[in-house]
């Protein structure tokens, strides 16, 4: 009887143990991809641990491919051109790629796994994106729902960005929230100031990051950012510039205005700022400074819900109507439009620009708006 029990136990353990051993060996063989070389733009070769997604493998080597969804395959921001070594197109990539993109070997970096040596092509600007450790030196209210953050760079000490670009800010756990997220905010400080950046952050209903910034964040905290990113910056030219913003969308516009002042750009500049009441206006002193020092610059705030108490003497009504009023009699054949703010406002204003002879190739805005 006892020997039977012993034999039973030994054989079952033996067989399952043997199976487990086979699986461990199999995992080593099949799931271990070793070290793979990623060749970038035909120049640099970097070594990464195989088996990871291209997005994360590159991130570990400090090359930041843009991503809004954290690698889940739902945003389509992480497209890179893979010349060789990626394997067949995955069903998770197909919904995010157009036929042209597929023909050009575009892939989603978050879905492609690095299993062997791979050759990719990424735009040069991506190399400028770095991770920065910063100190929140100043946190102050601009309005009842917009705060200004002044971040002194600790490590690295310098950042090079174009006026109008944005960074990704990493939140910290707070309250009941144990996870962190990354959220994008445009830089409002001058681009010639390389040792600090400033952000304008407006409260979003139930926003993870904005609730943290407005209710929990304290001066002196060390914050991580990744950047600079974005295609929103001033384009060359001699033509008129129409800047349009609402709420915290003023941030990149301010940075662009500093740039215009610093570079002594003499183009005609009109800045339309849409808000509801005088309570939503801020940086009026900065705008006055710009008006006095930038030739040919006019700041045009438009309030859509000004009350009699506000005693508002400026433009009243919807920003779309105010813009139309100012530009409809101008020659807009070369004019450029730069927009930043709520997507609804941006869409509506683009329509106004279009109907005033400004074509989409001369209109610029950040798509994450």
């Amino acid at each position, binding site marked *: 009887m006892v020997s039977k029990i012993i034999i039973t136990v030994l054989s079952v353990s033996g067989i399952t143990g043997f199976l487990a051993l086979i699986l461990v060996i199999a995992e080593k063989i099949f799931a271990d991809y070793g070290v793979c070389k990623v060749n970038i733009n035909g120049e640099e070769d970097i070594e990464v641990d195989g088996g990871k997604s291209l997005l994360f493998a590159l991130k570990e080597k400090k090359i930041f491919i843009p991503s*809004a*969804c954290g690698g*889940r*395959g*739902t*945003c*389509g921001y992480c497209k890179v051109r893979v010349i060789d070594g990626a394997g067949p197109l995955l069903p998770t990539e197909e*919904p*995010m790629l157009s036929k042209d993109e597929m023909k050009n070997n575009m892939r989603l970096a978050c879905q492609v796994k690095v299993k062997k040596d791979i050759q990719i092509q990424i735009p040069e600007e991506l190399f400028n994106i770095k991770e920065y450790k910063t100190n929140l030196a100043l946190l102050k209210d601009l309005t009842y729902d917009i705060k200004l953050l002044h971040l002194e760079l600790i490590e690295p000490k310098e950042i090079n960005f174009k006026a109008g670009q944005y960074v990704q800010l990493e939140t910290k*756990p707070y309250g*009941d*929230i*144990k*996870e962190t*997220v990354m*959220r*994008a905010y445009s830089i409002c400080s001058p681009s010639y100031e390389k040792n600090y950046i400033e952000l304008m952050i*407006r409260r*979003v*209903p*139930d*926003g*993870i990051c904005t*609730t943290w910034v407005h209710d929990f964040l304290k001066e002196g905290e060390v914050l991580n950012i990744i950047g600079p990113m974005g295609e929103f910056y001033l384009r060359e030219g001699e033509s008129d510039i129409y800047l349009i913003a*609402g709420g*915290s*969308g003023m941030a990149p516009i301010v940075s662009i205005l500093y740039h215009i002042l610093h570079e002594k750009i003499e183009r005609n500049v009109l800045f339309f700022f*849409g808000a*509801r009441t005088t309570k939503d206006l801020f940086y009026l002193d900065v705008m006055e400074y710009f008006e006095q020092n930038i030739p040919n610059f006019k700041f045009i705030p438009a309030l*859509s*819900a000004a009350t009699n108490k506000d005693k508002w003497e400026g433009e009243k009504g*919807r*920003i779309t109507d105010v813009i139309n009023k100012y530009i409809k009699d101008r020659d807009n054949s070369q004019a450029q439009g730069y927009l930043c*703010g*709520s*997507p*609804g*406002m941006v869409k*509506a204003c683009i329509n106004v620009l279009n109907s005033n002879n400004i074509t989409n190739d001369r209109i610029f805005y*950040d798509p*994450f*708006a």
Partner: protein
Amino acid sequence: MKETPLEKSLYRNFLPGILTKDGFIGEDKRHIHDIIEEDIRELERLGISEVELAKKLQELIDFGKKNLEEDVRYEHFIINVRWSRGMLPCPFGEPPLHYKIYAKITNTKLDKTIVVTQLGIHLMEKHVFFYGKGSKYRLEPVFLYDFLFR
């Protein structure tokens, strides 16, 4: 209920702090599938279609969107839409991304107000998900039907 690791990581998305501050479950202790099943049964019992509810909400939001953060009147509703920058993925993990649109809708006849988001409408229409009980975005099908159509 048995879950694959993929499902477990997916349902993480419904918790507070991952995609939105308050998450999608509120205080509900039930499994996501159970929440959906019971709401489906409730809808069948009442003879209401979630698509009908979602389409009406979308109609209201689309009208409100035209007025940037102002109260507007549509039929007997007052709608205030706030559209913020950035986009949200669906917690069920499928493309596309959704705009961050937050709408306060008041039914002047019933004198009641609800809060609804663009993502919430998508969840209702495509996943029959009405949020967990206790979540501030939870809309009971019966209440919502009366709110929209009575």
